[in-house]
């Protein structure tokens, strides 16, 4: 326990005066805090209930930072990976497009029905078909 450093001081000594003043102010404040009117107390209680009933604000930083890092990594990967893939595939697409652009409408139609024309080409010609019938 610390000693009372003001006990031996003169009543009007500044240190003693300030100590007394602080003690009195503290006591008055404590008393005033105990004696609060009912209406104010009710409002304080309501304020406390409201504050405690408010949902806690979530700290989104732990979620947003990894998500952002992941997105940045994915973007970087896409940028690096894309040019490596593009040279092989791009000419084929461009070539087809250029051929179709230079063809007339019937050729375009043919190009779009390659399976059908393939099957047609594999069928015997009418002359060959007639010859085959007469032999029989």
């Amino acid at each position, binding site marked *: *326990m*610390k000693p*009372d*450093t*003001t*006990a031996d001081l003169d009543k*009007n000594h*500044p*240190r003693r*005066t*300030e*100590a*007394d*003043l*602080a*003690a*009195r*102010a*503290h*006591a*008055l*404040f404590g*008393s*005033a*805090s*105990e*004696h*609060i*009117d009912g209406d*104010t*107390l009710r*409002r*304080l*209680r309501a*304020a*406390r209930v*409201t*504050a*405690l009933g*408010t949902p*806690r*604000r979530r700290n989104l930083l732990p979620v947003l930072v990894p998500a952002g890092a992941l997105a940045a990594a994915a973007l970087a990967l896409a940028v690096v990976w894309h040019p490596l893939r593009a040279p092989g595939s791009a000419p084929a697409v461009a070539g087809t497009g250029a051929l179709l652009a230079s063809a007339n409408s019937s050729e375009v139609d043919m190009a779009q029905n390659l399976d059908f024309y393939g099957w047609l080409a594999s069928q015997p010609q009418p002359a060959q078909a007639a010859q085959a019938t007469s032999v029989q």
Partner: protein
Amino acid sequence: MDDMNLAAALHPEGLAVPRAVELPATMEAFLAQVQRRAFRVAEMGLGNADDALDAVQDAMLRLHQHYRQHPAQEWSPLFWGILRRRITDLQRRRKVRSIVVGWLGTAGEDGEDGPVWEPADALADPARAIAGRAAYADLSRAVRALPRRQREAFMLRVLEGLDVAATAQAMGCSDGSVKTHLSRAMEALRHKLEDWR
């Protein structure tokens, strides 16, 4: 105040030393424990019960929203720091409104009272009905007249009884600054409250 340690000086009376308050188990218990003193501090700073209630509610709300997960021993300086900032905000807002009203020249021209946010001279509550009500009103007036930082140091350190470190945390300054502000506040109050001798 020389190099006097106020807390040590007041120790025999059990005042102005950190209260050996049991740590509250829940935030609700903490707020219930502190709400009355918080209201009185806000009222002393703002001079108005309604504004004081708003400030206390806002401080409670922010503490719960942002610091609920913090250890219970941190709640006290955090709460008083939030309340201190809220009181300062309201005082500044009131000052701006007062200036605007002054420019418009609407107050007092037709015999009406001043702006409604003027600090009430009297603190209307039953605390004044007790023996020391006049003294408490004198104290409130004297504390309100102090410069802001001195007022904060006095209220937190002497009235609320926080230790130097907690007061410094709540005020956002160093321990040394707290001692300086408190010393000046005590000096000023000693002169203002001469009648108390």
